[in-house]
Every structure is written in structure tokens, then in C-alpha cells.
């Protein structure tokens, strides 16, 4: 009934994991609900901190999808530019890849046996 999955070198059980997460989670919530004495509601402490700049409206500050992970894609530009250029969308290239890979694997299987 425990749902144990035996891998070659250990086991994994989802039900034991859920029970442990619930136990630890309830301890964390109990400690969090004890509260903090120096917090006063509806004062300066509630507003977000943007280094003193005025806060824009919430609709304007939603980050759209092309700008997320800008740092990651900018850092790997040397890898991404040739890769995106290879996906041309031209069907002659698609069949070119098929023929080349079939030839390579045919030679490999034929030689190594």
C-alpha cells in the first residue's frame, strides 16, 4: 500500500514523500503564524521597494515572454545564433538532413557490422 518503486540501487515512494512534506510543512506554517512584532499594517511597510522610483501601474510592468531569460540567451549567443540559423524552415534542408544522416548510419552499420 505504500507504493514503493524499486530502482536498481534504492527505492522511491510517493506516499512517504507526501507524508514527510505535510509534516515538515505544518511545522513551518506553525512557526510562521507566530508573527512578527514590528509589523504595522497599512503603513510604508506594505508598498514594494523600487529604489525610490515611482511605481508604474500594474498592467505596464508585466514582463512579456520574449524578454524573460534575457540574460541566459544573451550569454549563450555563440551557441544560439548558428542553431537558430540552421532551422531555416526550408524543406530542401529537411530532406537534405534525412539523406545525409541515413548515409552516415548506413556506412556505420555496414562497416562495424
Amino acid at each position, binding site marked *: 500500500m505504500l507504493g514503493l518503486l524499486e530502482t536498481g540501487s534504492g527505492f522511491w515512494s510517493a506516499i512517504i514523500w507526501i507524508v514527510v512534506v505535510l509534516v515538515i510543512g505544518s511545522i513551518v506554517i506553525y512557526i510562521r503564524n507566530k508573527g512578527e512584532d514590528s509589523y504595522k499594517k497599512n503603513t510604508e511597510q506594505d508598498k514594494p521597494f523600487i529604489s525610490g522610483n515611482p511605481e508604474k501601474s500594474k498592467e505596464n510592468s508585466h514582463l512579456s515572454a*520574449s524578454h524573460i531569460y534575457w540574460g541566459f540567451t544573451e550569454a549563450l549567443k555563440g551557441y544560439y545564433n548558428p542553431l537558430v540559423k540552421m532551422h531555416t524552415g526550408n524543406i530542401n534542408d529537411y530532406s537534405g538532413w534525412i539523406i545525409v544522416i541515413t548515409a552516415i548510419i548506413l556506412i556505420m552499420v555496414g562497416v562495424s557490422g
Partner: protein
Amino acid sequence: MNLSNHIPILIVAIPLLAAFLVPLIGRINKKATGILTTLALSVSLILTIALAVKILTVGPQVYVFGATSPSLTLPSGLKFPIRIMFQIDAMGIFMGLITAVVSFVGAVYSLIFMKQHSGLDKYYSLLLLLTVGVFGMEFTGDIFNFFVFLEIASIASVALISFRGIDLGEPAEAGFKYMVVSSISALVVLFAVGIFYGQYDLLNFAALANVIKYSQLDKIALGILVPVLAMKAGAVPMHMWTPDAYSEAPAPISMILVAASQASLYALFRVTFSLYNITLNTLAVGWIIIIFGLLSMFIGVTMAIIQKDIKRLMAYHAISQTGYMFLGVGVGLAVLANPVALKQYGITAMEGGIFHIMNHAMYKGLLFLTAGALFFKTGTKDLNKMGGLAHSMKYTTIFFIIGAAAIAGLPPFNGFASKLLIYESVYRFNPLLSIIAMLVSILTLASFVKVFHSAFLGPKLPQFKEVKEVPRSMVFAMAVLSCIIIFFGLFPDLIVKNLVHPAVMSLIEQFKYTGTVLGGM
């Protein structure tokens, strides 16, 4: 007439009959087409589950076409089978279960999703034909029959991909590219069938497996079958048709196309394991499949992070998850001739890879359905224009969170169970492969966090002010898949012991495959 003997043919025949009845009924009443499709596919689902129970308790089933009794494989006086037959063992019924569930859910989802399109009777009859093609590919025991069903499935799916091509241009282009790619692959498969027939005069899988010698012509046949079937499954570097085809098809069709790609993956395993088995050079072919897997995983996920279109992103993830399956089964193939290593980690690697096939079909289907729900309500697929939809579409958000957590391999969902099996066994083969697999898993989580943030989180945008929740039949379809994901996540050992392990053993032990047909030699 004992009806339970004829279940294998009924699973294929009932959707086929419904596919030809649907245009007739469409002339009388437009709404009845969808309901007839759902009925036919639900009957198929029930029959598939009954057949699965029978196979897992009794043994592999054979169904011969045109003989006096369905299990008469060797006609009187002859030593090899000459009729077309369906041969279903544990691996075949495993894939058949996936197809039955996915096509039933797709039909339920399309009842509302496609309501404003015209020409719906053609859509439903093509959907039934696609299901028939995929079932036939997974159940057949005859190599030319496999080619016929492969062509049925690819013709039906091309017509479905370009279904919206009457108004827009892109679906037609995607359909053309898919047609060229699948025609080339099907004709190369026919060429390999010709090579086998010319050498041995046999077309049956089991009879071929009995007499095959690894001569020069067999090497040529293997050398052209492996890349072509891998290309149909979406392996890099022949993968470029996948994002176009999956993103331009309607959302339930993308889900069934995933099942069709996995069926050609099943054919690749069937050819290398049951047809050739130890006669081929397992280390070389195993490493070829492992390298396909590594390239697919890595390039798939890095291309997925920079996409702007939500369905292209999910299609690139489908490529990357297929890489996991290649990796797991490739490791199993590479150690096939080595009994000690096979028992230690080869079987576990294959169990991980094959369990991942079923998990992938479930959570990828759920993700495509949520993307379809977003497209249905907002009218756009571009992630730059969406935002703040979690306020109004609560059920879709919950299903998306379940699907994204499952694909990234977070516990306690089923993605974690199959990925753990793959990591632990591949590590003992070569540690570098396991490290790359874990890195790809982290990048998968990163890209789904990106989709979740840009589509669901954030403030409510003014142009989506009157967007409400999707209708109930679509929610029901998504809920069925989520329940299966949660159930597989909580009790993975039930599935692995009862469904996956018999499938793996039936691939490795070739004599059981031939013995069912040739009468226990």
C-alpha cells in the same frame, strides 16, 4: 461464436466502420457526428482494457485473418505462416492502451473545441481513420501490413493538420512539409520490406526473426530502417517538421499526433529487438540510439526556451522527451548481449524508457489541451500578447500546473518516477549521460516557468476582460488525463510491475515472440 476471440479485430474494425458512417449521418444531423465518434472510441477503449487484462494473465494473442479459426497460424502442411495476422504481446497492448485513452479524450475535447468550424463530418471521420492507422501499426505482426497502416495514419494526419488551411496559409505549409517527410520515410520502409522479402521469401515478423542471418543485405536493411523510423519519431537532426506540424494542427489532433509518433518509436524497438535481437552488433546500434537521444534532449530543450509561440514550445519539448526514451532503451540495447549487465541495470533502463512513453503521452496531451483552451478563449497563440489569465480560468491553471510539474520531473507526479529509473540505471552505464539528462530536466522546468509566468500570472489585462472558464466537456477531458497522471504518480510500482515489466521482457526474450506463431519451437 465466441466473441472474446475476435476482440483484436473489433478494436480496429469498429472505428473503421464508424469512420465510413460519419459522413452519411452528417447529412442528416450535424451534431450526431461528434457523438457517434465518441461512442465508437469509447467502445474501443473498453475492448482494449479487456484485451489488456486477457494478455497480461494468459499470454500473447494471435489473430489470423481469413482462416477457419482465429489462431490457426500454420496452415495445414506448411511450415511458415502465410496469412496476415495481428500479433499482440505485452508491448503492443501497452502502446494500444495509450492510443485508446488519448484518442477517446481527444474526441471528447473536440466536441466543443471545433464547434464553429464547418466540414465537421470530414474532421471526425479523419480522426477515426487516424486512430485506426495507429492501432494497426501497434498490433500488426506482418511487416507489409505495418507499411499500409503507417501510410493510412500519415495520410489522415496530413489532412487533419491542414484542416484550418482554408482561411490561413500556415497550416497548409505545415501539412505539405509533414507529407513530404512521411512519404519519404514510408517509401524507405517499403524498400526495406522489399529487401527482406527478396532474401527470405517471408513477410511475417516472427517467421523472419526465426530465420534471419546477419548478412550484408540485412545490414543494409537495418542501416536504412533505423534513421528513417527515428525520423518519424522526431529525433534530432531530422526533427524540423515537428514544431511546424504540432503547432498548426488543432489542439486535440496534436495530442493524437504525439501518439502516432510514439507508435513509430515502438516500431523501431520492435525491429531492433524482436527481429534482429542478438544477431546484430548491439554495442554499435545501441550507441547510435543513445547519441540520437542525447542530441534530441539537449537541442530540443534549448530551442524551446527561446520560442514565443506556445504550441511550438510544447512541440520542442515533445522532441526533448522523446530523447529520454531513446536514451533509456538505447542503454538497454547496448548491453543486450551481456547477461550480467543486463540484469543489473539494462532491464531497469528499458523499464524507465518504456514507462516514460506512457507518461509522456499523458502529460504532453494535457499540456496541449490547456494550450488549446487558451487559444479557444483568447484567440491568439502568441505568448507576448497573453497575461494574467489565472484570475478567470482557474481549472485551466490547475491542470497546467499539474502538467508542467509532471514534465519537469517534480515529485510526486509520474514524470519523476520514470526519470528516476532512467537516471539511476544510465549512471551505471556511463555517468556523463546521466548528468546531461538531469541538466535537461532543469532547463525543462525553466521553460515551463516562463510559460506559466507570461500566460497566467500577472495582473488582469484589459483586453481579456470578458474571458471566462472553458466549457465543461473540455474540462472533463483534461480532468481525465490529470487523474491518470496523479494515479501513476502515487502508485508507480503497480504500473511498473504489471504493465511495463512484461512489456520489457517480451522485447528482450525473442523466443517467446516467435514461439507464439510457429507453435512452440
